[in-house]
């Protein structure tokens, strides 16, 4: 994504912050929506738009789980693996999903670029455990294995979103 496109996103909110550096997370999150992850050129463009070095931008980007510096699938499925979900069978849910998609048991991305499955820490839907989140959509649960199968079919049939919010 170009620095100008990023500026178009952050300029309207610039005056809400006493220091421009606060715009780095909104900028990174927006820059990521183009490909679903950030490459070196994106980090450079964010730095240019916010007024920071690329090295600094990268140091911030590597801190957060939901900023990706490696390619992801078109849809990212985050399966909560924390304690409340573990007690309700999330390990079985995760291994079912990864098994069905032919991925390593702890997650990964499919060869066709359709899906990334990853482990997530507590998503805050423990009352609906085991739960999972697709991209930044509302977290879903409790998920049965049949629900997981139906979800994969529905996502395969759905068009790729215009912007890949993660």
């Amino acid at each position, binding site marked *: 994504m170009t620095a100008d496109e990023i500026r178009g996103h952050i300029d309207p909110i610039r005056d809400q912050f006493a220091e421009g550096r606060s715009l*780095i997370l909104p900028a990174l999150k927006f820059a990521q929506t183009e490909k679903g992850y950030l490459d070196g050129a994106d980090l450079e463009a964010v730095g240019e738009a916010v007024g920071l070095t690329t090295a600094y931008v990268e140091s911030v980007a590597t801190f*957060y789980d939901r900023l990706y510096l490696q390619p992801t699938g078109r849809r990212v499925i985050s399966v909560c693996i924390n304690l409340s979900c573990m007690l309700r*069978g999330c390990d079985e849910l995760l291994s079912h999903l990864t098994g069905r998609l032919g991925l390593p048991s702890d997650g990964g991305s499919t060869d066709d670029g359709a899906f990334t499955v990853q482990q997530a820490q507590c998503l805050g839907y423990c009352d609906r455990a085991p739960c999972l989140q697709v991209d930044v959509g509302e977290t879903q649960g*409790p998920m049965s294995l049949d629900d997981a199968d139906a979800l994969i079919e529905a996502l395969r049939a759905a068009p790729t979103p215009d912007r890949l919010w993660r």
Partner: protein
Amino acid sequence: MPQRHIVYLHREHPGDMAQLPEYVKAGGYNGLMKALADMEPDDVLYQLHRSGVRGRGGAGFPMGRKASFLPKDSPRPAYVVCNADESEPGTFKDREIMEFNPFQLLEGIVLAGYAIGSNHGYIYIRGEYEHQARVLDRAIAQAYEGGYLGSGLLRSRFDFDITLYRGAGAYICGEETGLLDSLEGKRGQPRLKPPFPAVAGLYASPTLINNVETLTTVPVIVAKGADWYATLGTEKSTGTKVFSVSGHVMKPGNYEIVMGDTSLRELLYDICGGFRPGHDFKACWIGGSSVPVLTAEHVDTRLDYESCETAGTYLGSAGCIVMDDSGCIVRSSLRLAHFYRHESCGKCTPCREGTMWMEKVLQRIVDGEGRMEDLELLESIMGRISGRVLCALADGAVAPIESALRLFRDDFVHAVEHGSPAREPMAPMGA
């Protein structure tokens, strides 16, 4: 004991409280109107102080005292920051408050701003709560349109703006100084304190930072009065509290109860429907995962700050994770150790290295490769972490595991001898 939806959840209200007209119809913004018409900022501060309300994010620090630490003569602007980074395992109360009662939170932030002489508030919401962030976006827009935010709000001379800021996935950004660094565009690592945020918080300015639930309390305290509020609960635990209950109970969910009114037993068996047939209570982490575990011996503990401390734990965020006798305490401890290792920000060596070793040792015990001396090794590692770090994450990592090792020693010994490979089955139960 009944639940009492009188401060936060308002489930009995027939309308959609996430719409401004419904919120106003339900008595919303009475507190702000009263404050702007009849109260000086110090009067509001006094009411918060007098109410005894304690921080609902986990630390339980009295809100009025925290607000009173802000210097009155600072040349820099003061800020209100709402911590909506709810990430403590087992905690999902702020999610429901923001989704179904967002205006009460916004009103609370404005009132807090009025009390401390601030004109700008920030809500830092975890990136995973995009659904709730969109609810707040709409609520903030409606509040501006209705004159409940902006310059000269409610035709007064008071100006107040709220900015919603989305995080990007990091537990440590729920630690207040980690949150402030993240909001300032840095890696979200905790700061050395002092200075505390009250003196040098956001952009080195005086900052009042409170949890969603805490700030949502403020309109009720101002509208109905601190004296009314303080009649609820106990002397040291005033008001109601939302308990997020999850794990092996039949009816997990958020339950608002008057503090001190209810015991853990009543919460688990009467309110949450108890356990599956053939199973019973084994353990619970009552204040989120970062607190010492409780056993069946503690099931009559009253649900308030001081009773939890007497039982050897903390009320924390009241994210109550419950395990029945089908669960394995060693595997549960490993799962928590994995979490803290993953979320340690890396700034302090004892935490970064210690949480890694805790996970490694627990992993080999679960895998059946443990040695009896691993139990002492675990204790030794944990003893080298606590008190040697900048923030509470490491203490949170040690508390549940140190207590489990002490209270369920036989389970750990058994795991060293036999491992604990069995995976928890899918456990569909309850609503």
